[in-house]
Every structure is written in structure tokens, then in C-alpha cells.
């Protein structure tokens, strides 16, 4: 992962994700959705690699098809019947179309959240919301820490047990289930004990004696301000185009989708700018790097 966008101040990254996910969910316009999906897919490729994205596609594509079919089976509105079900209701082109774009929207949001999880690490979330509520942020940081911590512990217990022939991958099916249960039980006992020690240790170090501060290394620079202004500008232009009726999509009873006049094109360009902001950022960084390198 070599991504300049995730080096931004947490507030800028957070504002970007809020803007892009909200707009994707609000406006069901096909062009906006496809821009969002493409940008999200591209960003997932940058953050997690194309191989990971390929794996995601394996469940995303069937999901797309499944969703549109499901919608058409339960929603029969629309003026273009394709064929009739045995209960007399029609499967319509409009319901299929709507289902398809609804699933495009959902997949785009899923991909954006994948990016969100990579970019917005727990320390960034803490930096953002730590000051709002110290106890919640402490709880959050401890809870978030538990997931990788348990994973590591389970692996080490399993490795230790494998040495005495009781690993979760050894023996027949029933043996393996039994061994896995044992590993889980050991982990649970350990977790209970460790939480008690953690509580005792915190108390003995004076937790709760005074107001806690949090430490983070993020500085809000001009770059972050520019990002946030760009986000706000793009959201404003897109929203203005939608509110004024320039970008318009309707699926029932007949599909009507606004064309590509001046105003819709402007809104779509603004939305594309917003969605592709991380890639633009990376491209800019790459250009700067090349220029610096060639100057050496």
C-alpha cells in the first residue's frame, strides 16, 4: 500500500468518506452510482491490491445479479411486463433495473466501507472523537484492540497445542471440532483473566484519578484544508444539480433518467472529482516524486 490520501489528517479523511458514502446512498442516478462504484473499486485496488479486489468480485457480481432478480420477484410495479409469474403478477423491466442499480449502490457502499476500514484506523478515530468522550474512546480503543489480540492469542494457543498433537487441524472431523472447542475454551478463560488483570493494573496506575488526555501525531495542514474545501465544493455542486432537477432519475412506473446536458454534466464532473479524490491525490504525489527524482 502506497497511498498518499491515507496520510491526511483524520478529519479530512473522515469528511471525505462521509461525503462520498452519503451522496452514493442518497442519489440513485445510474451515472453517479457507476462513477462511485468505479472509484471505490479503484481505491480498494490501491489500498488492498488488485488480487484482493478480484476476490471481492467473486461475491459482488453474484450479489448484483441476485439483488436485481430478488427485487423483480417481489416488486411488480412498472409499465413494461417481461413475463408473468404463476400468481399473476408481472416481472417488469423497471423492477429489474431498479434492483440492479440498488445493488450497484450497495456494492459501492460496501467497497467504500472497505476503504474506510483501511484508511480510518482506530488511532485516527480516537484522535477525532477522543476529545468528545474520553471514556467512550477508551472503551473503543480497548474493544478494537481485542480483535487482533484474540486472533494472535488463538493462533499461539493452537500452535502450542499442535505440538502435543491436539491442534485444530489434526485428526478426524470430530477430533478437529473437539480440539477447536478446547482452543476456544482456553482463549475464553485467558480473556477473563486478562480483563481482570487489566482492570487491576489500570486501577493501580491511577486510572480515573484525573482527566485523561490523548496523544496523536496528526497535524492539520493546508493540504487537509484544501481537501475539505474540495469535498464541500463537490458536494455542493452535486447537491445543487440534484435539487434543481438537472440530475434526475426515476424508476417507477417508467424509467426516466436525465440526459447529459450542461447542468447534469457539471454535477457529474463534481461528483467524479469527489469520488476520485484519493486517486488524484496519489497521482499528484507520484508526479511530485518523479519530478524530484529526475531533479537529483
Amino acid at each position, binding site marked *: 500500500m502506497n497511498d498518499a490520501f491515507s496520510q491526511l489528517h483524520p478529519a479530512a479523511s473522515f469528511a471525505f468518506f462521509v461525503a462520498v458514502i452519503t451522496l452514493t446512498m442518497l442519489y440513485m442516478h445510474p451515472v453517479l452510482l457507476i462513477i462511485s462504484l468505479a472509484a471505490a473499486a479503484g481505491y480498494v485496488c490501491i489500498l488492498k491490491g488488485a488480487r484482493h479486489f478480484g476476490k471481492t*468480485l467473486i461475491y459482488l457480481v453474484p450479489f448484483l445479479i441476485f439483488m436485481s432478480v430478488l427485487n423483480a420477484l417481489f416488486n411488480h410495479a412498472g409499465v413494461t411486463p417481461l413475463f408473468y409469474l404463476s400468481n399473476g403478477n408481472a416481472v*417488469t423491466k423497471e423492477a429489474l*433495473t431498479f434492483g440492479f442499480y440498488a445493488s450497484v449502490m450497495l456494492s459501492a457502499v460496501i467497497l467504500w466501507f472497505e476503504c474506510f476500514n483501511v484508511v480510518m484506523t482506530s488511532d485516527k478515530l480516537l484522535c477525532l472523537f477522543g476529545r468528545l468522550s474520553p471514556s467512550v474512546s477508551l472503551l473503543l480503543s480497548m474493544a478494537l484492540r481485542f480483535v487482533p489480540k484474540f486472533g494472535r492469542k488463538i493462533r499461539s494457543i493452537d500452535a502450542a497445542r499442535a505440538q502435543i498433537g491436539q491442534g485444530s487441524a489434526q485428526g478426524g472431523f470430530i477430533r478437529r471440532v473437539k480440539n477447536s472447542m478446547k482452543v476456544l475454551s482456553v482463549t475464553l478463560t485467558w480473556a477473563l483473566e486478562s480483563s481482570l488483570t487489566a482492570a487491576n493494573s489500570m486501577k493501580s496506575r491511577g486510572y480515573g484519578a484525573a482527566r485523561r488526555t490523548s496523544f496523536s501525531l496528526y497535524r492539520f495542514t493546508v493540504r487537509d484544508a484544501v481537501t475539505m474545501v474540495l469535498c464541500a465544493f463537490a458536494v455542493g455542486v452535486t447537491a445543487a444539480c440534484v435539487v434543481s432537477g438537472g440530475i434526475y432519475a426515476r424508476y417507477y412506473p417508467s424509467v426516466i*433518467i436525465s440526459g447529459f446536458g450542461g447542468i447534469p454534466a457539471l454535477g457529474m464532473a463534481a461528483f467524479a472529482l469527489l469520488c476520485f479524490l484519493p486517486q488524484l491525490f496519489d497521482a499528484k504525489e507520484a508526479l511530485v516524486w518523479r519530478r524530484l527524482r529526475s531533479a537529483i
Partner: protein
Amino acid sequence: MKKRSIALILLVLMICSLLAGCMKNAEAVNFAGDIDLGEDGVITKEVFSQLRDNGEIASICGNSGEISYKWTVPGTEVTNPQDLCMALTITEKTDGSIEITLKSDKSFGFLPTLSVTLKDKWDALSASVYDADGKKLCAASVTGGDKTTLSFKISADVFSYIIRADEAEPTPEPSNSANLSDGSRTEKDKYGTDPVPVGKPEPVEPDKSNVDTSKKLHCTISIDCATILNNLADLDPAKLDVLPTDGVILNAVTVEFSEGESVFDVLQRVCRENNIHIEATFTPGYNSAYVEGIHNLYEFDCGELSGWMYSVNGWFPNYGCSRYALQDGDVIRWRYTCDLGADVGGSMVA
């Protein structure tokens, strides 16, 4: 790697084809709102041009004495905008008929729907429109609660209309197989149906009725949504595209059915034959199909008290349409209500 790129290409192709299939330059129809006829009753050329260019539907309202009227003008049908006097003189004759005279003798060039709201309730289920010579032109939809509204599409080059209530059709003689209510049931039945009024047919469960395809009978069925014309402001704007401007989805037709078939069976078949969209779901709690939408006009599309209701021989049954076993000669009317049935004569609040 190869498989993945193929999948990607397929995805992009699918998106492109869907996009191409859906791109239409058609603009959605909007409701322009109520336009008041002034003193002189003239609507100017500019107003019509605007309606035409924006593809808007407008309600043009006026009144003649205590009788008010409303023109429903679809802008898409206006081909040649011009100044038009759309005022009317409406008089109630002593024999109960309504005489309507256009003040203008100029042809409109398009055929709007006229809805006349009388000053009180008119006791008729249906009415017909005649010209001055007594020739029948079309049927008029009768809607409204305390004040009856009569709606019909005007005819070309006719400037004087007379609306008369149709003679009430005699209720067909019930056959021996009909199970009429004698008032002995006083409790709700297991599907929550209140006692059926005396002399009206008891519900027949669809799973217990025997359809005898060898016995062919006839009934009349019509579907209308004229009440929407008076509540255009409440209608979901997306549905203006599918709204028939005269409020008639299916004019009364006589169809054949097999003995034992229900109102729902006939509705579904007639809709399929006439390519009318319909969506219905079977509701086990009421043991009947519930009609959610006909012609893409759904329940709640025109206010939260709106939806489809049916009447047979003028009576709105208090049970679902799958449980009404038809008799020979029955007259079925499916009507869209915007007021829980009060505007189509089927109010449950008796």
C-alpha cells in the same frame, strides 16, 4: 488473471447495456397546479404554450352559480396553443339532468376532461353524456361524497352536453347456488369479516369454490380512477405519466366467466387480456387477494386514504375480492378512492 478481466469486461458491458436501454429523452409529466378561470373565462395562448412546452397537466377551475367545474388539461395533447374561452353555463334541469353549454363556439383542438361538481349529492351509480340531439356520447364517472362530481372527456365540435343518470340496472336474480345472508351470523367469521347485510351474498372461500368450466356465464367489469382528477395535487408526481386523463382505465365490458369464479379471477383475466398492469398479493389473514395497484396506480399514491375498491351491483362487499363468487349478470366496478371509499360511494363508516 484472465478470468478476472473477463468478469470485469462483462460487468462493464452489462452496465453499459442497461444504461443504453434506459436512457430516454422523455421528460416526466408534472402537475402545474390549479389555474383559475377569470371573469371572462379566457385562458391565454401563453398558458397553453407553457403547458405544452413543459408537458404539464393543469387543472383549470371555474364555476357557474353554485356548480363548480374543473378541466383537466394534459399539456402533451395541446398541439396548437390559442386563446380559449373555457367558461361554461351549467344548469340543473327539473327532470334531474344537467345541461352544460360551452360559452365559446371555437373548437379547442384537444379534448380535455371536464369534471362538474354539483351542489349536492346525486343519487346515481352511473351516468351518460348526451349531445343536444339526445345522442349518447359517452359515460360519465360519478364520484364524490356529499357533492357529486361527474367527469367525462368532451367530444370534438360538441358545445352543448346533457348528463342524465342511467337507469339503475336491476340486480340480477340470484341463482340457486348463491348463498345469500339471512342475518343469522352475528359474529365475525374466522377471517375477521363482519356480518354481511341481509340479502347480500356470503363470502365463498376461494379454496372451497368449485369452478365449473363447462358453465359459461357473463358479467360486466369496468375500472376507473376518476377520483384522482379531483385530487391531482395529492397524486405522486411520478404517476402522472400513467394517469388516464379521463380517469377511465377500462370502459365497461361484458366478459365471460366460468361458474364459481371470483371477482379477482375475472379482474386478473380481464387485465391480462387488455394488457393492463395489476399487482395483487394473497393475504392469508383475509383469505383473499389484495389488489395493491392497477395500471401502475397503487394504494397510497394519491394521499394516505387512497386505494382500490370494488363493488358488485352497486354494493361494496365487506370482504376480499377472491371471496366474492360471481353470478350471471353481475356488474363489477373497480374504483380508485382517495378518501377510504367515501368518494366512490363505498364508505365503511355508515
